[in-house]
């Protein structure tokens, strides 16, 4: 599985435009695992002062879907 990239210090693209990383509360909530995929989600909630009306709001969400295995011509359950 390819690990998600870390947010770099500096300005981060969000729904509010670019905001400093320090103004974001970054979380990686657990995601359900299925037979076919692993999911990693990274959520950024705004905590800065520039947009007080958006405090606590989700302003960015990244998702990584890792496909555990592909498809065989033998169909599901086949090698």
């Amino acid at each position, binding site marked *: *599985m390819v690990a998600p990239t870390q947010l770099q210090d500096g300005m981060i693209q969000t729904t509010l435009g670019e905001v400093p990383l320090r103004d974001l509360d970054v979380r990686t909530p657990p995601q359900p695992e299925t037979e076919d995929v692993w999911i990693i989600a990274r959520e950024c909630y705004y905590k800065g002062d520039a947009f007080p009306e958006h405090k606590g709001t989700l302003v960015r969400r990244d998702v990584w*879907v890792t496909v555990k*295995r592909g498809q065989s011509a033998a169909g599901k359950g086949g090698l």
Partner: protein
Amino acid sequence: MTQAMCTSFKKELFTATHNFAAAGGDTFKIACYTASATLDATTTAYSSTNEVTSANYTAGGFTLTNVDPSTSGTTAMATFSTNPSWVNVTFTTTQALIYNSSKSNKAVAVLDFGGSQAVTAGTFTINLPPATATTALLRLV
């Protein structure tokens, strides 16, 4: 929706329709769809109906980079070298379709994301599985 190798694709293998060669092969793409799409083994071709829309997402999806097909034991396999990803997008997707844009957008396989995956002003990445006899993206056993 369900993860599947499209039945039409299996038949098309017998007519040498698809070429996965790294040099001179066909161009394959992967497109993401909303929960309203009904993709499964019976899907025969790409359609823009219920494809996700977003700034920085081009209709038709991501162009994949072919890797020469290989074998491991009695299994032949095909995959792609670059994980599809879209940067600074906002959409919710539940599934994706791999298709051959060089051959009338013929469908290859459906990937299921295990539910709705919402991306907000962020990056959506599909990590393709390792190219082994039991996990490669496309396998003939």
